[in-house]
């Protein structure tokens, strides 16, 4: 498809786009410089004169600038910068009506809130890293951005020398500006263009180094997230156990009690009324059959047999044969994942297919399982009427919860009128070279 010309044109477009973005960064240098000066002034005001209320206002401005820089880094430099701020703590109120800031008590709600906010902002290392970035970015970030822009600009200027009436600054110092200008331009313009891409990336890396989370705040975030997931998982597990207990209690257990009763009653009947005795035994057997069926259904809901026996790909193939829907399964898994991961993906796919039948009115579906770069990916697509709401269904939230335990994610696209596509991705390692049969 791509000829050398089209590849060259594509590379040129990319370089020009990068250069354009760097030019925007360059033009913003004065804005950054003004902000840096304002910050220094306000710092002197709150430290020197004690104008403490200015601190949150300044911080808000700094954070806006930092947020814009993070956005640009992610969208323009392709270096995503996670937001590092510590979440704002809630104000607690004691039984006696005092407000607790985590450090001291206050009677006045507004004052307590303000104290809490000050403490929160002051103690967040990200506040100071932001400030540091603000002060040095016009120099460093600006320098990185401006270099290719100035090189290219100066080169273009050089190319224009022969048609200009006066030799330009710099070029006038050299003899023969009419010849040297274009020569220098031919070197500088390509150099500027070639530098644009790497410089844009470097700019992003620079932004991340100060505006990204430190290892400590990243870990703090992670701990918070894991605590939440653990709570969710524990609750889900407890609910599952309650359901199993209830099913056993109302189902198989009750039926076995009935069987036992009938068999107890049959003994005196054997001699007295053999016909009746036969009937009772038949009933008892019927009850056992039903109990077995219920146990089978229960097992299927806990750990489906084919999944246990053959793993994810075959388990999903077996599932596909059981739903009232034509399902095509494509699986390329060069090994097996951990059993809990397999189970989570299996039930997520099962839920997706159930939804396709129940809500989507679908007739066909495809399931694709792949594993690449340490990421297990399952995609379920159906030809139903779409319009699935990621917030709406408890089923989808259930999938999300199951996957979250393994740091998995769920992406749903379901425009009204369909088609619905559900993509689940979770990091995992496949074990052993045992190839799943296809």
């Amino acid at each position: 498809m791509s000829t050398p010309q089209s590849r060259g044109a594509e590379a040129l477009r990319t370089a020009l786009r990068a250069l354009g973005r760097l030019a925007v960064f360059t033009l913003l240098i004065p804005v950054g410089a003004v902000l840096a000066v304002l910050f220094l002034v306000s710092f002197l005001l709150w430290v020197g004169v004690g104008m403490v209320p200015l601190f949150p206002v300044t911080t808000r401005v700094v954070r806006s600038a930092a947020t814009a820089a993070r956005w640009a880094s992610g969208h323009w430099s392709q270096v995503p910068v996670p937001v590092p701020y510590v979440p704002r703590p809630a104000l607690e109120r004691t039984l006696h009506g005092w407000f607790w800031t985590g450090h001291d008590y206050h009677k006045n709600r507004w004052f307590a809130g303000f104290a809490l906010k000050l403490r929160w902002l002051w103690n967040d290392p990200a506040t100071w890293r932001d400030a540091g970035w603000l002060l040095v970015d016009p120099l460093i970030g600006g320098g990185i951005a401006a270099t290719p822009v100035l090189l290219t600009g100066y080169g273009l200027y050089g190319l224009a020398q022969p048609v200009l009436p006066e030799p330009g600054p710099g070029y006038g110092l050299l003899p023969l500006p009419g010849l040297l200008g274009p020569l220098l331009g031919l070197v500088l313009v390509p150099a500027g263009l070639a530098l644009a891409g790497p410089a844009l990336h470097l700019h992003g890396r620079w932004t991340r180094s100060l505006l990204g989370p430190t290892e400590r705040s990243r870990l703090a975030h992670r701990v918070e997230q894991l605590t939440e997931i653990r709570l969710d998982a524990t609750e889900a597990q407890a609910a599952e156990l309650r359901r199993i207990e209830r099913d056993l209690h109302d189902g198989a257990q009750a039926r076995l009690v009935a069987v036992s009763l009938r068999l107890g009653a049959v003994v005196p009947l054997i001699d007295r009324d053999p016909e009746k005795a036969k009937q009772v035994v038949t009933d008892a057997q019927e009850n056992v059959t039903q109990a077995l069926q219920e146990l089978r259904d229960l097992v299927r809901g806990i750990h489906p047999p084919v999944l246990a026996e053959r793993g994810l790909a075959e388990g999903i193939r077996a599932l596909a044969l059981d739903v009232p829907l034509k399902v095509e399964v494509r699986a390329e898994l060069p090994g097996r994942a951990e059993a809990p991961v397999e189970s989570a993906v299996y039930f997520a796919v099962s839920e997706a297919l159930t939804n396709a039948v129940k809500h989507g009115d679908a007739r066909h579906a495809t399931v694709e399982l792949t594993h690449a770069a340490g990421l297990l990916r399952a995609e379920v697509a159906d030809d139903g009427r779409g319009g699935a709401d990621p917030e709406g269904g408890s089923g989808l939230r259930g999938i999300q919860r199951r996957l979250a335990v393994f740091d998995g994610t769920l992406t749903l696209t379901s425009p009204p009128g369909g088609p619905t596509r559900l993509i689940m991705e979770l990091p995992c390692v496949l074990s052993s070279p045992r190839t799943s049969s296809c």
Partner: protein
Amino acid sequence: MRVVLAEDLVLLRDGLELLLSAHGHDIVAAVESGPELSAALAEHRPDIAVVDVRLPPTYSDEGLQAALAARREQPGLPVLVLSQHVEQLYARELIADGAGGVGYLLKDRVSKADQFVDAVHTVAAGGTVMDPQVITRLLARNAYDEPLAMLTPRERDVLAMMAEGRSNAAIAQRLHFSEGAVSKHTSNIFAKLGLGASDDDNRRVLAVLAYLNGTRPE
């Protein structure tokens, strides 16, 4: 008949041994693991193998795999597979070679001793026996598709029984029809589904199963 039996639960293995011996069959080997089963099948070349899907050492589908492997070695070796659960996936694999002589039943079916022994005979004679649960699910999955949707409820009942591997006589007895009525239904079914009619019970079962599985050659 010479039978090889593979089942890891002692109670069930003894029960099956007792049941089959009582019906005059000769249990040449009763084993409890996949490797033992493979060895016994190669050594004894029995008239039928009665096999549990899940066997040690891995407790995955060892039994089924051993049985399928043995059928590749000895084409048409009759195998009756028993399991705690029935799966269409496994049913497909069993009938895939089209050779017949396969059965796939829930372990529960053992409790109806006569029917179970009948099934053993049918499979040993090269017939095909499918658990009603497999058939019910197959029919449910295809229920809304043409041309299955064109069948009358009666014809669907007959189709289900054909798929389980019952003969016309057995179907007639079960549904309280005359045999003539059953064969009229069956020829209607074959016409509607576009299958070549066959008097051979076994070929008929395989054709119906292949049709329901959506694996018939177009």
